[in-house]
């Protein structure tokens, strides 16, 4: 039940980490790389704080009217809905923006930002909301009492409460009436070494507006892009150090 300590490691990414570390080992000072090697994860290890999974949204590439990421998320997690938009769950949503001064139009997805200092986790009375060592913020559906305090606290409106009975749930996405849920960053896929469903869908649609990866791994494409371009957090004033960053905003 305690998902905090039992999630299997990412095999493929671990492989890459080890492989790249191995290459670097040959090129760089051995002492430094040995530390990295020791920190690399193997499968079945708990989520490790050496990693921090994150997402970059390239707003310039995101297409208005496209909702491939949203549909992929709904399919992946069985978010069918009951045609009641006020109460149906939405883990990821497309937001359309118009600049008040220039009328410049933008379109981008918003989901749980996987805050490093998550207000939802701070306020949760039972500890059901928690942050995994690798930065993914989740809800333990067994201890959530459905108080919705986390929804009040989340600055991004990222969470949904399950307002009615559900059918057709997926085994990898446990959900239940009366509890709160939000984007899991497709933790089940990440732990298998895959990227989240939304990222894959966006790439398949040819837009490549979403980049997933390990912020802490200097060799990861995400970390490289974050290092090379200007990106921003939503509500940066709150200093939550989100793992989801936006470029072109």
């Amino acid at each position, binding site marked *: 039940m305690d998902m905090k300590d039992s999630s299997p490691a990412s095999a493929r990414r671990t492989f890459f980490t080890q492989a790249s570390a191995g290459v670097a080992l040959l090129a760089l000072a051995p002492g430094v790389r040995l530390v990295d090697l020791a920190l690399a994860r193997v499968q079945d290890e708990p989520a490790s704080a050496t990693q921090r999974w994150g997402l970059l949204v390239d707003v310039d590439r995101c297409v208005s009217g496209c909702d491939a990421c949203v549909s992929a998320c709904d399919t992946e997690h069985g978010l069918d809905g009951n045609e009641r938009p006020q109460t149906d769950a939405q883990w990821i949503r497309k937001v359309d923006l118009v600049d008040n001064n220039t009328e410049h139009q933008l379109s981008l997805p918003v989901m749980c930002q996987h805050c490093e200092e998550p*207000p939802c986790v701070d306020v949760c009375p039972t500890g059901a909301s928690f942050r995994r060592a690798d930065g993914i913020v989740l809800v333990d559906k067994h201890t959530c009492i459905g108080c919705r305090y986390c929804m009040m606290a989340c600055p991004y409106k990222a969470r949904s409460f399950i307002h009615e009975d559900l059918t057709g749930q997926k085994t990898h996405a446990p959900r239940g009436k009366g509890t709160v849920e939000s984007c899991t960053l497709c933790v089940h896929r990440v732990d298998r070494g895959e990227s989240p469903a939304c990222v894959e869908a966006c790439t398949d649609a040819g837009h490549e507006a979403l980049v997933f990866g390990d912020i802490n791994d200097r060799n990861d494409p995400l970390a490289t892009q974050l290092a090379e371009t200007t990106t921003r957090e939503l509500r940066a004033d709150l200093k939550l150090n989100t793992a989801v960053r936006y470029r072109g905003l």
Partner: protein
Amino acid sequence: MKIAYFQSVSSSRGYWLISAIAGVVTLAGLLGAHHMENAGHWVTGMSNQVVWGVPHVFAIFLIVAASGALNTASIASVFGRDDYKPLARLSALLAIALLSGGLAVLVLDLGRPDRLIVAMTHYNFKSIFAWNIFLYIGFMFIVGIYLWMMFEPRMNRFSARVGTAAFIWRLVLTTGTGSIFGFLVAREAFDSAVMAPLFVVMSLSFGTALTLLIGMLIFWINGAAIDPALAQKLRRLLGFFVIGVAYLVAVDHLTRLYVTGHHQLERFILVDGGIYTLLFWGVQILLGTVVPAILLLLPRFCQRGYLITAALLVVVGALAQVYVLIIGGQVFPLELFPGYSVTSTFYDGVIAHYTPSLAELALGMGGMGLAVLVTLIGVRILPFVPVQMAGENQD
């Protein structure tokens, strides 16, 4: 001075009538809660936009009032004012009763009320919500001991000390309740430095109004009346509390306008927020503040009828105030993209809609019913009501 003696309320038609009404209201609340849990919260007005609704309005009102209800007992034992003693026991009982009503509503509104045991066994000590669970349970415990000290003649000498502990505990409790909102950093409506003092004064006002109303009801059932001199003291006290709340409400809005710069939110609440503006000016300010302040503070309105009217209006205004605070604070959209106009499928950038359903209204009212019911049961089995008012016997 002579100490009044106390007795339990005897069986009478009035007693059973009021008990029946309170029982029916409580039952309706349970049915409402059952419906909500069975069908899921979609049968309420609550949604992913407005996650806390009318049940929370009633729950917060009752919890805040509970701590204020103890005020009469505090004045008697902490500040040594014997003239308040006749109502001390009743006010402590009311504190427990109101808190039970509020907590029952809060628990029954949970998505998973069946997991109450989880809430009791899993604590996140960073969460102010978890701390509040301790504060509430501790409050019941201390007030229980306090009552025992008052009931048991041999223990009377400790009642001042326990009373002081209860007094401090309830200040912390109200601050804790206010802090539930203070921690919601992202929501402009709750981003206010005066939230904690505001809640303390609100508790005094709501609690005193309910002490007067329920107190008079119990006395009426018992075929007596509250000592007029004491009623007048409570009347003036309530008048000052109402003014105190109004003052902090003004400070709250002014800071938001001139210090934190939440202009749009202020415009929404004060000018063009539809039902929320109406509730604020019409019910909270006019009916709940101005009219009762006049009735409570001008000597010419000292008759009992005016007092009851004023206390009722304070309660109505209080509910409107909590409604505007909790619901109004949620329907106003979170600002994620300053400088942009925003649209989405998830109601970003728009004022959310909220209309309470019958089930949730019943649940909220049920909390009130339960509070009255607990009081009625208490006064029936234990000697809470003074037979002779101390005031009458004073030299």
